[in-house]
C-alpha cells in the first residue's frame, strides 16, 4: 500500500529528513542534527513540526455543539468562538477511542484527531449522528498542520503575522485561536501544543503549505532566532516529559481516562458516552493506573516491558525512553494502584535483566507556560 505523504514531503527529503512509516503515513522521524538536539532546540529556542498527518473533522449545524458534548468527555459546550479544549472519545465502558482537540470556530467546530484513529473516529461520529442538525466533513486533505513550539515561538509568530486586525499572537490566551495571514494565505492559529513549551499550532491551506513553512523559518532567521525542523522522535520525547498521553501508549480502548490520570479532561457532571462507567470508576477507584518511574540503574525501558514488584509481574511499560531534559531513563507504566504512589520501588525487566526504578512525581517536566 502506498503511504500517504504531507505537502512538505519533498521539503523534508531535501532537508535531511529520515522517514518512518507512522499510521500509514511516511513522516520525518528526525533531520540531520538528530532527535536529541531537536528536542533541546525546542526547549531552548524554537522548533517547527509538520503534523499534517493528523486528521481534521469539521462539524457544522445547529445541533453540532450538543452532538460533540455527548461524544467528548470535556466541557465542549462551554467554549466560546475561537476557544479550544482537550478531550477524549470514550466507549460506553469508558475505554478510550481517541484523544482529540476541539476548536470552536465561527459557525463550525474543528476536531483534531490522531492520524491512526481518523477513520475510526469518523465512523464513530457517523454511528452516533442524530437524525438531523449535524453535518460532518473529513477536512483532513484541505489542511496542512504545523506546530511551532519553544520559548521563542511566539516572537516568531508575532513578527510574522501580528496585525492590528488579529492582535498579536502573543496576546492570544492559551487554548484560544486567531485567524491570521502567513505568506499571503489565511491560517487558523491556536495557542497550544504538545511539547510543554509555549507555542502555536497552525492550520494552513494545504496548497500553501510549503510557502508558509518556509516563511516561518525565514522569519526566525531574520530575527536571529534558532529554529529548525523537528521529527516524530523528538515530538515523542517532548510530549513524554510534560506527561502528555500518546494514543496507543498511555491511551487505548482498554484503558480509561481515570486509569490514565486524565480525569481532569472529563466533566463527570455532564452526560456523555462512557460517563456512567467513568463515574463509577472515579467513586470506587481503579485497580490499575498510570505512574511515571525513573530508573535508578541504566537501561532503556520500552513499551511492553514487564514491571515487577516483590518478584512478581505487576504491570507493563506504556512508554519509556531516555528523557533528554531530565537526563534520565524514565517510563510511564500501568501498575496496581497501590504501587503507583510516589517513592514506590519497582523493577523493569529489560531483556531478562531487572532494573530498579522509583515512582516519581508527575510531570517529569513542568510545562513552561504553567
Amino acid at each position, binding site marked *: 500500500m502506498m503511504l500517504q505523504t504531507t505537502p512538505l514531503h519533498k521539503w523534508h527529503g531535501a532537508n535531511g529528513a*529520515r522517514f518512518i512509516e507512522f499510521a500509514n503515513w511516511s513522516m520525518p*522521524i*528526525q533531520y540531520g542534527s*538528530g*532527535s*536529541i*538536539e531537536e528536542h533541546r532546540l525546542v526547549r531552548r529556542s524554537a522548533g517547527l513540526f509538520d503534523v499534517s498527518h493528523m486528521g481534521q473533522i469539521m462539524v457544522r449545524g445547529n445541533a453540532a455543539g450538543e452532538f460533540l458534548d455527548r461524544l467528548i468527555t470535556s466541557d465542549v459546550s462551554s467554549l466560546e468562538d475561537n476557544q479550544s479544549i482537550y478531550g477524549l472519545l470514550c466507549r460506553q465502558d469508558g475505554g478510550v477511542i481517541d484523544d482529540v482537540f476541539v476548536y470552536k470556530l465561527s459557525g463550525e467546530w474543528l476536531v483534531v484527531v490522531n492520524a491512526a484513529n481518523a477513520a475510526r473516529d469518523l465512523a464513530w461520529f457517523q454511528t452516533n449522528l442524530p437524525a438531523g442538525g449535524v453535518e460532518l466533513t473529513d477536512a483532513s486533505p484541505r489542511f496542512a498542520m504545523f506546530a511551532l513550539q519553544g520559548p521563542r515561538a511566539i516572537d516568531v509568530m508575532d513578527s510574522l503575522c501580528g496585525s492590528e486586525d488579529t492582535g498579536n499572537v502573543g496576546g492570544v490566551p492559551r487554548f484560544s485561536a486567531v485567524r491570521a495571514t502567513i505568506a499571503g494565505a489565511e491560517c487558523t492559529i491556536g495557542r497550544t501544543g504538545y511539547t510543554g513549551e509555549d507555542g502555536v499550532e497552525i492550520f494552513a491551506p494545504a496548497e500553501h503549505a510549503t510557502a508558509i513553512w518556509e516563511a516561518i523559518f525565514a522569519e526566525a532567521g531574520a530575527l536571529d532566532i534558532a529554529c529548525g525542523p523537528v521529527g516524530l*522522535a523528538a515530538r515523542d*520525547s517532548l510530549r513524554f516529559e510534560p506527561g502528555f498521553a500518546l494514543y496507543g501508549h498511555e491511551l487505548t480502548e482498554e484503558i480509561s481516562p481515570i486509569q490514565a490520570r486524565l480525569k481532569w479532561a472529563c466533566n463527570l457532571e455532564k452526560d456523555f458516552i462512557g460517563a456512567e462507567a467513568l463515574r463509577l470508576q472515579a467513586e470506587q477507584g481503579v485497580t490499575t493506573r498510570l505512574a511515571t518511574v525513573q530508573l535508578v540503574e*541504566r*537501561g*532503556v525501558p*520500552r513499551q511492553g516491558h514487564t514491571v515487577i514488584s516483590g518478584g512478581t509481574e505487576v504491570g507493563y511499560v506504556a512508554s519509556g*525512553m*531516555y528523557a533528554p531534559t531530565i537526563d534520565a*531513563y524514565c517510563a510511564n507504566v500501568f501498575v496496581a494502584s497501590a504501587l503507583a504512589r510516589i517513592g514506590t520501588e519497582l523493577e523493569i525487566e529489560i*531483556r531478562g535483566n531487572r532494573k530498579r526504578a522509583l515512582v516519581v512525581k508527575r510531570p517529569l517536566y513542568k510545562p513552561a507556560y504553567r
Partner: protein
Amino acid sequence: MTFDSNVKYQESHEWSRKDGDLIVVGISDYAQDSLGDVVYIEHPEVGSTKKKGDPFGVIESVKAASDVYMPVGGEIVEVNTELDDNPGKVNESPFGDGWLMKIRPSDPSDYGSLMSADAYQEYTKGLED
C-alpha cells in the same frame, strides 16, 4: 560518511582494529548514522568468552535496541565504560572515543576474514536500495 581504512568491517556493521595482541571493536559511521542518537550501551561482562558471530551487547538508540556481534572469537578484556555517561560518543566519534570493547582473540586468523573499507563501502551501497 566516513569509511575508516585503518579498520576492518563485517556485514552487521561492527569495525575491528588490531591493537597489539588485542582487537578493538566499535560500530561504523554508517551504523551510527542509521541508528540515530545512541542513548545506552549494554556492555558484555569483562572476562567472558564468546564465539565469532555471538551477540556481545546491545546499542540502544532513541529509535530501537540493536544487538552487536563478535567480529572474532575470544575473551572480552575491556569495555568502554566512558560511554556509560556519554553514549553519544558512539555518534560523535564512532572510530575513536566511541569504541565499544576489546577482545583477546582465540583464533588470530578470524581477523583476516573481515572486510576491507572498500568492500564494506560497496556492501553498504547495496543496502541503500
